[in-house]
């Protein structure tokens, strides 16, 4: 069994570790490229959302490289993600590939059954350890991302932070034992702390809301986070991979409490869950306004149902709390020049607003 899975940001590091520890051979699909996108777009329905196309492209490239088991996720709606696997399976079969698809549905019985399928011959203790190890890496990756987002607008020499991040990713991916992770993190943190930073700068605070796939995958969002960082803004993603896992997979109590809080916050604008992250986009915009952010950016794949709903409400939220919101919808046609121009204009606007505010206070 050679296992493959779709890409989403740094997720491959975590899943590769997990499946390796479970005793499977893993075929990581080639990094998302123009070819992935083209392959996916050719064989997908025209107006389906971008993650579907990319995931299909990943699967095709993985199958070309010899994978025979595809792992994907299911869902119960109303977001389209829950029905992806079913349609992708049909398309891949029509293209003549032979494979087995393991779709992990959010029911306990189903999850247990599929974990057993993927971990034949391993004891439950070993399975537990595998998950612990993967979780350790996941948290490390997210800590790294957060620290990098803070440092980027403040570094004196552009690009230093990203070089360290790149190196860090390689080291985390290569770690073979859970015990090594502490040492690796100390090393990375040490080199990040030694970077020369400009203490005086008070960077613009920008929050990113929207659909998680576009938020986490730099190929799709045209490296949004880094672009904003180089333009001098401190970026706060409202969702990291670990949040997603905690919220949707382990369903922790802390997360449920947070979700209830967000639900209450969004209630005057959106009275019901609409799937995906639509409700959170609105709730986080309201929350960040209270925290004194300078601006928000909503990102989503073109035709994403929950986010389109949120978009049509966000303009009202933005007006009410006086917080500018920029909306960016991505599809396979998005060009980077267009995005950069819009980001620059947005940053200029925010800077102007801030200067005006300081003048009023001063």
């Amino acid at each position, binding site marked *: 069994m050679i296992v493959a899975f779709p890409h989403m940001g740094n997720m491959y590091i975590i899943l590769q570790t997990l499946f390796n520890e479970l005793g499977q051979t893993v075929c990581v699909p080639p990094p998302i490229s123009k070819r992935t996108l083209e392959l996916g777009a050719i064989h997908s329905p025209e*107006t389906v*959302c971008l993650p579907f196309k990319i995931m299909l492209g990943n699967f095709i490239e993985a199958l070309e490289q010899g994978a025979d088991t595809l792992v994907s996720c299911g869902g119960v709606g109303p977001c389209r993600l829950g029905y992806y696997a079913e349609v992708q399976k049909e398309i891949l079969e029509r293209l003549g590939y032979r494979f087995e698809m393991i779709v992990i549905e959010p029911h306990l019985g189903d999850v247990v059954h599929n974990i057993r399928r993927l971990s034949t011959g391993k004891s439950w203790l070993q399975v537990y350890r595998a998950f612990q190890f993967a979780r350790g890496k996941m948290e490390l990756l997210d800590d790294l991302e957060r620290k990098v987002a803070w440092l980027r607008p403040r570094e004196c020499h552009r690009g230093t932070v990203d070089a360290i991040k790149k190196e860090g990713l390689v080291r985390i991916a290569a770690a073979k034992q859970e015990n090594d992770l502490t040492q690796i993190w100390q090393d990375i943190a040490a080199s990040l702390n030694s970077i020369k930073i400009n203490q005086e700068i008070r960077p613009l605070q920008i929050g990113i809301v929207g659909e998680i796939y576009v938020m986490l995958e730099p190929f799709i969002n045209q490296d949004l986070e880094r672009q904003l960082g180089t333009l001098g803004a401190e970026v706060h993603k409202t969702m990291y991979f670990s949040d997603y896992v905690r919220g949707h997979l382990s369903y922790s109590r802390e997360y449920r409490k947070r979700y209830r809080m967000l639900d209450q916050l969004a209630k005057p604008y959106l009275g019901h869950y609409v799937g995906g992250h639509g409700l959170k986009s609105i709730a986080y915009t309201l929350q960040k306004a209270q925290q004194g952010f300078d601006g928000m950016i909503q990102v989503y794949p073109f035709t994403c149902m929950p986010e389109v709903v949120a978009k049509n409400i966000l303009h009202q939220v933005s007006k009410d709390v006086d917080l500018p919101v920029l909306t960016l919808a991505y599809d396979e046609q998005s060009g980077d020049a267009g995005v950069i121009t819009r980001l620059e204009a947005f940053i200029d606007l925010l800077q102007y607003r801030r200067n005006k505010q300081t003048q009023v206070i001063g």
Partner: protein
Amino acid sequence: MSVRVGMPQGLLYYQYGWLWEEFFRQLGADVVPSGETTRMTLDYGSSLDEICLPAKVFFGHACALREQVDFVFAPRVVSVKKGQYTCPKIIAMPDLLRANAKLPTIIDSEINLLQSRRKLMEAVLAVGKTIGKSPLASICAWGQAWLQPRRLADDLTASNRLRVAVIGHPYILHDRQVSMNIINRLRQAAIDVITPEAVSCRQASLAAQPLGKEIFWSGSHHIAGAAMALMTGLKPVDGLIFFTCFSCGPDALIGELLCQRARVHNIPAMVLSVDEHTAEAGFITRLEAFTDMLVRRWRR
């Protein structure tokens, strides 16, 4: 003076509108329907961005009622069947209306049968309460409304003319402006048109099973099941037109599945996608090309 309740004629109105209209009438309210979709409706609807055409149409209808009514009936229909959702845009419709238009009081009671059917009665009572009626009056009116006779779809299995299944959501097919009057156009060309309503819910549910995982959008579940039933029944249809609106989320996936099935069953299928910019001439040309092909194939 009795209260005036406006019924925007869009989205689920085409399925459940008759029932709610009767309910309001039984309660002694004046029901004001918004009428057929016009160019004006679409103009109003254009204030929503990137959203599908039926949602814009509903929005336009609600706006058109603005001056004439005390209440606009736009309930939050989360689910009409256990385990199934309607669609994010239908769920969020009251919020979209509130954020984008100045309207009279919106009756936005939540109808959510995701977990249990009993919630329907709660919704009925809540709607009655909004227009100032007692629970007892609401229950009586609801019971009365159910007794009204309904017109059923014609049974066309016995027909010996060319039979074409036109598959799409009722709020697309039965809105003459949105659907470009496709049903009548086909009928004028001496073709028998079968829409998903001709297939019962039970039948559709059964027929949808070979599609794999149960579809969790109730509207799409029914139309996919109906299409399957019409393609695999004793007398399969001669052609299938999947009628959808640009940027309809579920249809993007369901359309793909249905076209694949049609290919397997050797039934010609065409996807027609419209939005507010679709020109009639181009649309008719495509329709004619498809029906001509069907006729030639049928004669052979």
